[in-house]
């Protein structure tokens, strides 16, 4: 990193970024329909107050501990360590209530919605994990919840649809657009535009207009804080590298953030390489996208020469998104985080390895991080790494049965 980029990183770590316009360097901002601007400004103010309010933080912390099952463990993966030749630790977000890191954000935002006196909550979901987390958090906090979910995702994540309904949420199938996560986000925004006064939108990742990328990162950064304490206790030092999968990028930003200031720690995000590197065959936004504006933010984006957003493909619904959080685009631009990709087949192979060797069924999304870690290990024998195991794979059984013929 050169001096200019070091300075930008310092600004990020000191809280100067995102700036008052919601910018991480050139990325971010607030490209929202006018109807939402008052609501976004109000949310921005409220978020800054609440996140610095000790009573709110105490409530959140208690709920995270008692209800959501935090802190989550850091598991030493013995057999993977032997196989790969690096010391592998897994940060176990799969052990949280509802089974993925998504609950950290959903619970935090549900509590914020309560503070804003919201009468109803809307949320989008891809893999269904954010939908389930939102449904559960809303039930806990006591606000009705509507979840928008692409019709394609409803089919491939059927178990989660039933869970959401059981938890009292209304699940609305989205048949517009590509019928996956991106179309669900479009539809959740439309709902919010139609109900800006009494509705709160629990956006599930570090995307969207400011203050979402900032707020969601703050709510997810507990993953990295815990992991850092745990790895220091376990190994007496920092890890050499941390790996996380990146769709919108919330679990990755969550685990990376505590390590951003530690120069010796390599941070590597792994995107969905899908079927191939061809546009439309993957969701590797940072690896092959170009800057653009989608869902309220200026970030890297998979779009064509006419500015039309491209359909994406990934075997994992949670990574199947053409955009990425603006803070990731920023961290890539200053060279602090490296982003690579893993293809469908490689991820599926790591699902199998993690199951049979460690007795853990990881989410298909999380398996992408394993692929990146395994490749990195080849040239870094003897080092210590953490893999963000962002969620459990129970929800993927329909896909796994079909593809792996389990």
């Amino acid at each position, binding site marked *: 990193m050169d001096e200019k980029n070091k300075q930008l990183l310092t600004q990020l770590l000191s809280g100067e970024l995102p700036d008052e*316009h919601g910018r991480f360097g050139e990325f971010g*901002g*607030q*490209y*929202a*329909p*006018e*109807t*939402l*601007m*008052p*609501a976004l400004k109000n949310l921005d103010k409220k978020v800054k107050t609440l996140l610095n309010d000790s009573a709110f933080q105490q409530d959140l912390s208690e709920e995270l501990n008692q209800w959501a099952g935090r802190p989550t463990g850091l598991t030493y993966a013995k057999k993977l360590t032997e196989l790969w030749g690096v010391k592998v630790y897994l940060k176990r977000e799969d052990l949280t209530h509802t089974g993925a890191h998504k609950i950290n954000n959903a619970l935090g935002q549900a509590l914020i919605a309560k503070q804003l006196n919201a009468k109803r909550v809307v949320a989008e979901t891809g893999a269904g994990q954010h939908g389930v987390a939102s449904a559960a958090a809303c039930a806990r906090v006591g606000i009705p919840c509507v979840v928008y979910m692409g019709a394609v995702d409803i089919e491939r994540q059927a178990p989660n649809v039933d869970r959401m309904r059981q938890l009292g949420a209304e699940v609305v199938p989205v048949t*517009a*657009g590509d019928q996956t996560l*991106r179309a669900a986000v*479009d539809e959740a*925004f*439309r709902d919010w*535009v*139609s*109900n*800006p*006064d009494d509705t709160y939108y629990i956006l599930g990742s570090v995307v969207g207009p400011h203050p979402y990328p900032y707020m969601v990162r703050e709510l997810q950064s507990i993953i990295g804080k815990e992991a850092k304490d745990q790895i220091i206790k376990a190994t007496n030092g920092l890890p050499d590298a941390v790996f996380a999968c990146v769709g919108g990028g919330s679990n990755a930003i969550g685990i990376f953030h505590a390590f951003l200031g530690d120069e010796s720690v390599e941070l590597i995000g792994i995107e969905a390489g899908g079927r191939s590197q061809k546009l439309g065959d993957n969701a590797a936004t940072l690896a092959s996208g170009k800057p*653009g*504006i*989608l*869902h*309220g933010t200026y970030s890297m*984006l998979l*779009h064509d*020469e*006419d*500015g*039309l*957003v*491209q359909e994406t493909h990934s075997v994992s619904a949670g990574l199947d998104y053409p955009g990425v959080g603006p803070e990731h685009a920023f961290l890539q631009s200053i060279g602090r985080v490296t982003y690579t990709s893993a293809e469908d087949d490689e991820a599926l192979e790591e699902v199998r390895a993690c199951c049979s060797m460690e007795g853990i069924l990881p989410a298909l999304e999380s398996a992408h991080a394993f692929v990146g870690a395994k490749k990195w290990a080849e040239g870094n024998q003897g080092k210590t790494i953490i893999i963000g195991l962002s969620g459990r794979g129970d929800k993927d059984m329909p896909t796994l049965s079909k593809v792996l013929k389990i």
Partner: protein
Amino acid sequence: MFGSELITNSVENTKQSGPAIVPFITAGYPDKDSFLDLITALAKTADVIEIGVPFSDPMADGVTIQRSSHAAIESGVTLKWILEELKTLNTKTPIVLMSYLNPLYVYGYDQLVEASLEAGIDGFIIPDLPIEEGEEIREVFNKAKLAMIQLVTPATPENRINTIAKHSTGFLYAVTVKGVTGGNEGLSKEVVGYLETVKASSNIPVCAGFGVRSKADVELLEPYVDGIIIGSALVEAIEQKITATDFLNTLRA
């Protein structure tokens, strides 16, 4: 006369008595071949014509414009194609492009201005560009005298309406509902107080749109605004093979 000046003038000096009529169509829908003929026909009665650039993620639009946008993209309608087609059009009625920001950003703002002037475009409406993010593009448009039509909505506080009105050129777009385009719940009487505030804040004409479907809607809005924008209802009429000008005539008092 062209650009923002022409738009303002056309809204103030309407072709027929009553409010200015601003029809919206999605470019190249229902088919690419009839695009210019449709505009030529609309130009006979319309005071300003709003042309939608189809976008893959129209998050401020309801089902009708989503459908027309999707179909137009499928048939290959792009910003480039629209700019090319419009070059051959000869009309004195001002043309406004409604586009989400990303296609314009990718085209490049300077190149966009150049192509717009060649194509006879007079201004832009960008539904996902609030005033806070619009400084750069406003500056480029202003220099070329192209209009940057800003939107206010019933959710916009009064002091913000004032600020937005100051930044708008051509006319000020008063969205009549909290919602996406094409609503069919009918307009509420409460819209009147809001429109009075908007009108009082603006030094340029005010045109109201979103959810205008009937003669009754036009009659409700007419006393408070200078023009009326008709989008989804017109697109639906075209889908039902109703002649665009016939449909617009049914809305006039």
